[in-house]
């Protein structure tokens, strides 16, 4: 059962064809990187997969199920998590509350209103474990907006992981990071367990080529090339439009 199977997907914004007849299959455990120049439709493709946009035509299958008509939160509940290109976290909540909301998302007690969240030991413990694992435990009570940009980009990834996804979509996780922070986030992504199928949008070629096993190159809303890393690197079309 493929984590993601996209068939003949298209998206128009008025006259603009943002995604033009894309078909894409991702195998279980794959590390796929999507590259392409600005405006190629990478983030639009993520929005279509995660349900933040509905396609003009075509189908999206997650874990063998047609989710084309499902809403974003219903798709996420199937075991998909995503991060955002522009940091999208709970700015006025503490770091701990941010992670807790990630942990809580998959619990059956997420609608409970008659018990304080603190009394859910398992959930509290899981949030604590995640923060300790990522060396952020000391900052648990800091309001998210007071954390550095680099930390916030990391928390984007941690929060997505907190929902224990089987399919992870990362939208430019290293955007705007310093070289040192980029290296740290890259190693985090490389260290993710293989059970998590990962699709990554990346602008930084060094990062892309370090993580990728297979690469999909988007160009003006279409797939220009698709294949193993070595093949893509040697592809003259890709070199022409993108790598320069």
């Amino acid at each position, binding site marked *: 059962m493929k984590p993601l199977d996209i068939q003949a997907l298209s998206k128009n914004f008025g006259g603009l064809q943002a995604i033009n007849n894309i078909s894409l299959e991702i195998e279980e455990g794959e590390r796929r990187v999507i590259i392409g120049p600005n405006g190629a439709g990478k983030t639009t493709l993520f929005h279509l997969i995660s349900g*933040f946009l509905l396609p003009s035509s075509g189908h999206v299958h997650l874990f063998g199920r047609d989710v084309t008509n499902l809403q*974003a939160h219903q798709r996420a509940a199937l075991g998909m998590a995503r991060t955002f290109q522009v940091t999208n976290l709970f700015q006025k909540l503490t770091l701990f509350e941010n992670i807790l909301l990630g942990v809580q998302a998959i619990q059956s007690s997420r609608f409970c209103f008659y018990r304080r*969240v603190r009394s859910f030991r398992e959930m509290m413990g899981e949030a604590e474990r995640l923060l300790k694992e990522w060396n952020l435990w000391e900052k648990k009570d800091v309001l998210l907006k007071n954390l550095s940009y680099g930390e916030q980009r990391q928390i984007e990834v941690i929060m997505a992981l907190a929902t224990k996804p089987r399919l992870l979509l990362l939208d430019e996780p290293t955007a705007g990071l310093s070289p040192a922070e980029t290296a740290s986030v890259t190693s985090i992504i490389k260290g993710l367990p293989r059970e998590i199928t990962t699709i990554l949008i990346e602008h930084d070629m060094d990062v892309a080529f370090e993580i990728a096993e297979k690469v999909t190159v988007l160009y003006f809303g279409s797939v220009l090339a698709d294949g193993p890393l070595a093949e893509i690197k040697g592809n003259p079309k890709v070199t022409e439009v993108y790598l320069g």
Partner: protein
Amino acid sequence: MKPAELIKGKFLLILLVVVVIMLLPSLVSNYYVGLAIQIFIMAIFAMSLDLLVGHTGLPSLGHAAYFGIAAYGAGFLYLAGMKNLWLAVFIGMGLGGLTAALFGLLALRALGAYFMLITLALSQVLWGIAFKWRSLTGGDDGLPGIGRPEMGMGIDLRSDPSFYYLTLAIFVLVFIALFILVNSPLGCALRGIRESESRMKALGYSVWLYKYLAFVFAGIFAGISGVLWVSYSGFVCPTYLGIDNSAKPLMMLILGGSGSLFGPSIGAGIIVLLENIVSGLTVRWSLILGIVYVVAIMFFSEGISSIIKRGH
């Protein structure tokens, strides 16, 4: 001051406030006991609105609908001769919750300013019905002569001190219930929605359902305040459903500070006191209130309670 002294000072201050609240009816005249009753009732009303405004980020401009419909429900019940307070509270919570469940279906389709306008329009529909349907509601004359309900247990609610302790007890219960609610998994999710709906959806939360639940809970708690208000004043009129009564708890949140439970309560205290004291001094009291609002928004945009927090 050293931190230890500060904590001791804070503890003594809280103790003093608690003692004053507990002994109030024997310390002041019935007039002030009446004001205190109004403050506690309005504090419940303001806290219920804060569930939407402060916690979920839904700026409702029609919260009087749930207060008013519960008030009319209790008024009809009392006039029909069923003077049991607990039954009225139960029915008021049901009416507030059901009305919110219905209005929520319509209002939650919109966002931001549109949400405000739809909540306002919906509450105005109820106001219009109460105003025009004279044979049932008495129109703008309202329903007078309702009288105080009974609560059993040998307590006579016709005495203001007894009513004061009843209101205080219900206020404390509502405060505790809301404290648990806003700190529950549901309450945390509401704050997540306030901060970022798209992130909550990406995590797998059904944002609409959470907003809807917040809307219904806010209606239920507002219903309690409406029933208490009729039970205290013995009178219902369309004003209870009007825009003024929707704006009032919003002003309490602005003045007192939203997103906490103490903020709305402090705001309720300030506004009830200002209204009553200033209106005794001048007929232009709404002008004075207006100035207070403007000053509060300019200098204490996070509410008066934020000053107290900042002090520590």
